[in-house]
């Protein structure tokens, strides 16, 4: 008799629902990579739960054949926290967007990260409100012309990675929808991390904000416009890998490696365990002054929220014994009436 575990395939995670995203949307790519990665993670569909809020990205749970909750705007982190706290046996994913998690749900987002609940949150950042048809989002760039900003956005955008660093998230990463290999790798890393794993995905909305991340997507530009973070390796980028990032005092700078004046050893070596100060500096690397980092910014181990919570429950049981209602009701001062 064979006792081998059944091998899961992408089809095992494919639901019978029609997908209703616009043709050409970056979401398709993220869904495809997720379905590719899920069998590799090895958690069966019935032990996997996808939770989302509101927005285009938040339709995601309907398209994977797992358990799922399509909740209300911005609240997926809270729903997921309650589920994961009570069911630590489940693998929980939160799917959200830039409006969902950084605008209406900003509060829940930072509290999820600082608590370090062991779940994965994937933020589809397209710098626009898609489902409501084209208003600017909290990650829209200054000057961006949208349906609600005909003269350009005047808000200063939030940087999701910086916010995550500020909340001291234990796993922070960024990937790009079209960079499928990197995306699959990043999702797997997120799943493997114990604690809250936060992944920002640059995602193209081809209807309302087409090309917002073209620089990071197009083969012609992406090597110069982005830099891949690799743990323990010097920070080098460029089509010809001839430029690097160096730490100069309390600032980062782009240096030229082609002249031989600056050597690889002079560069900043990426360290996923580095202090949050350094991670914050990486998160501020923005075009056009810097290439934008892609990869795992931070991966550190700290106690998960549910471990701490259940640890206290176990401790209470050990110290006082399993609760007894009758004893509790009869504790303290009581008196008898009648027979």
């Amino acid at each position, binding site marked *: 008799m064979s006792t081998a575990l059944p091998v899961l395939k992408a089809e095992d995670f494919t639901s019978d629902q029609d997908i209703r995203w616009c043709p050409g949307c970056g979401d398709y790519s993220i869904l495809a990579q997720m379905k590719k990665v899920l069998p590799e993670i090895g958690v069966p569909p019935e032990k996997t739960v996808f*939770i989302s809020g509101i927005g285009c990205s938040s339709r995601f749970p309907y398209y994977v054949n797992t358990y799922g909750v399509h909740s209300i705007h911005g609240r997926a982190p809270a729903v997921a926290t309650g589920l994961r*706290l009570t069911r630590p046996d489940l693998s929980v994913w939160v799917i959200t967007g830039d409006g969902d998690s950084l605008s209406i749900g900003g509060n829940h987002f930072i509290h999820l990260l600082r608590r370090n609940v062991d779940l994965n949150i994937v933020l589809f950042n397209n710098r626009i409100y898609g489902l409501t048809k084209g208003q600017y989002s909290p990650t829209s760039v200054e000057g961006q012309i949208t349906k609600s900003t005909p003269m350009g956005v005047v808000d200063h955008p939030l940087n999701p990675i910086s916010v995550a660093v500020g909340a001291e998230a234990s796993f922070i990463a960024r990937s790009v929808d079209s960079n499928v290999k990197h995306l699959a790798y990043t999702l797997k890393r997120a799943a493997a991390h114990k604690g809250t794993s936060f992944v920002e995905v640059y995602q193209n909305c081809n209807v309302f904000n087409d090309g917002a991340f073209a620089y990071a997507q197009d083969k012609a530009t992406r090597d110069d416009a982005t830099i891949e973070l690799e743990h323990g390796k010097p920070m080098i980028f460029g089509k010809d890998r001839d430029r690097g990032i160096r730490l100069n005092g309390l600032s980062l700078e782009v240096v030229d490696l082609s002249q031989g004046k600056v050597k690889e050893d002079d560069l900043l070596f990426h360290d996923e365990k580095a202090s949050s100060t350094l991670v914050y500096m990486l998160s501020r690397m923005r075009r056009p002054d810097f290439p934008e980092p892609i990869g795992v910014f931070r991966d550190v181990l700290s106690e998960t929220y549910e471990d701490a919570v259940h640890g206290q429950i176990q401790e209470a049981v050990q110290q006082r014994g399993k609760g007894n209602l009758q004893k509790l009701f009869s504790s303290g001062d009581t008196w008898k009436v009648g027979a």
Partner: protein
Amino acid sequence: MSTEATKSSATQPSATQPSASATPKSVKTVSGITVRLCGDSGDGMQLLGTQLTNTSALAGNDIATFPDFPAEIRAPKGTRAGVSGFQVQFASHEVHTPGDSLDALVAMNPAALVTNLADLVKGGLLIVNEDSFEDKDLKLAKLKVNPLDEPAMENYRLVKVSMTKLTKGAVAEFGLSVKEADRCKNFFAMGLVYWLYGRNIDSTLRFIHGKFADGKSVLANANEKALRAGWAYGETIEALGHSYNVEAAELKSGTYRNIIGNQAMAWGLLAAAQRSGKEIFYASYPITPASDILHELCKYKNFGVCTFQAEDEIAAVCSAIGASYGGQMAVTTSSGPGIALKTEAMGLAMMLELPLLVIDVQRGGPSTGLPTKTEQSDLLQVMFGRNGEAPLPVLAAQSPGDCFEIVQEAWMLATQLMLPVVVLSDGYIANGSEPWAIPDVSKMPPIVVTHPTENNNPDGAYMPYKRNELLARPWAIPGTEGLMHRVGGLEKEDGSGNISYDPDNHQKMVNIRAQKVANAAKLLPPQQVIGPQSGELLVLSWGGTYGACLTAVQQAQKEGISVALAHIRYLNPFPSNLGEILSRYEKVLIPELNMGQLRMLIRSRYLVDAVGYNKVKGKPFAVSELVEKITEMTKSANHKTAQSLAS
């Protein structure tokens, strides 16, 4: 207070009781006493009141309490804004309210005196700490003249006690700081009150030594000394001619304890969890007057209770929804402003058709309103405060002890019908207390909850919205092989749960969700009426006004008035026989601590021309005002008066 007998005897002996004086004073037996203890927020009046309550309960009296304190934690010392009070009625008969007017008032400073004196009956006992009536104290209370010198004092039996100095003298041997010594004066006052009502000090001594354990035994000993000094002082001074005795009340036989409303709510949740074989996930955000439920529950981690103090009200209810999806007993609590924030998520839970308890401990509104005062003005909010057609069952506790029962009924409904249920309490019953017959846990029937493990659709995918005869859907939980399904806030096709914008399906789903709520009436007992089953006047009440309404109706009945009481605990759906009951009376009076919210529901539902008696002053009803209203509305009362005049 009615005097029953006067006899000369020493107070009940007790091993730890202070020694009796050489010439014991006489003891007057009375059927009941209402006393209010008031002072500065920092004077320990709530502690004093709680101890007097517990001690009176242990003496077998029936009790009802009314703690009344400001929203500010420490309002400026000595000011009127900082006055904190605790009223307790203890009696040898059943009591359902803390009493309308006071037989005795203990006032620790001028501000406390002037803000509470109006409630003291003429001839009532007034005990003041005369050391705190100096010029500076009068100034803080914004008084030009010392109220103790006013001619109005002749209306009361004023006893001036130099509490501060006497306490200082009593605890001198312990070498406490001036501040520490001063703090002992509430125990001196307690000793005096205990002597006055023949209370046994043993349980308070246990409390003192429990509280000041771990190296603070000096404080424990000092407080005990202050307590005994207060007792001895009562025995000694001439001004207090006699003490009082209130015999034990005739309660149903059983073992009793004192219980506070919020505590009863927490314990009811524990009971509901045990009965349904579930563990509690309790999520809330601190808010007055609901926070004590959180404080209580977080003590019971050894019952498997997981308490989650969320980042806001919305996260609290949403995390509870997540836990419910996972198969846990999910609970969130708040008060009016927090419920407003939870509104959208309550709609989601209703749409997902998941069991959830939403407990609203009402306070004075609107907006931030009167956080520490009571009101019943969230009824329409919880009934209708959601977008779309989103009815939910609404239940309301009627007394502190009833919180224990109602929350279990709510959990039964939530699980049998698969929907969120709202439980209403209010600041008055949440902080109030009463004797509670300890239930036999082994006799509590189970609340049967099942989670399917088999696919309910032989033709294909599991159908999360396939319903039973009550229209409840199955509660399949993650981790169950083959039953994977998605739920969400979008309208869904009945049965499959797939997103559906079909017009007929939407109509069908709205109807089903409404019918499901209506089906709750099938699981609940019919409404009972206290008093004549038909006739001239029915008083219809709900929630925390039960005690006042019942007492008023009973008083009116004693006066020969034809009046009955129907106190409803189920506000949505109404009990199935309520319409029929209403039709049996000529008039219906609905007293509420709001501007007529139940009245609006009753009038629209049953087309009954109900009359309201409405008040929003942050205080519970006085029995007398209800009796007056009942009298005014009944011909029988007028007849009786006419007859007695004629004869």
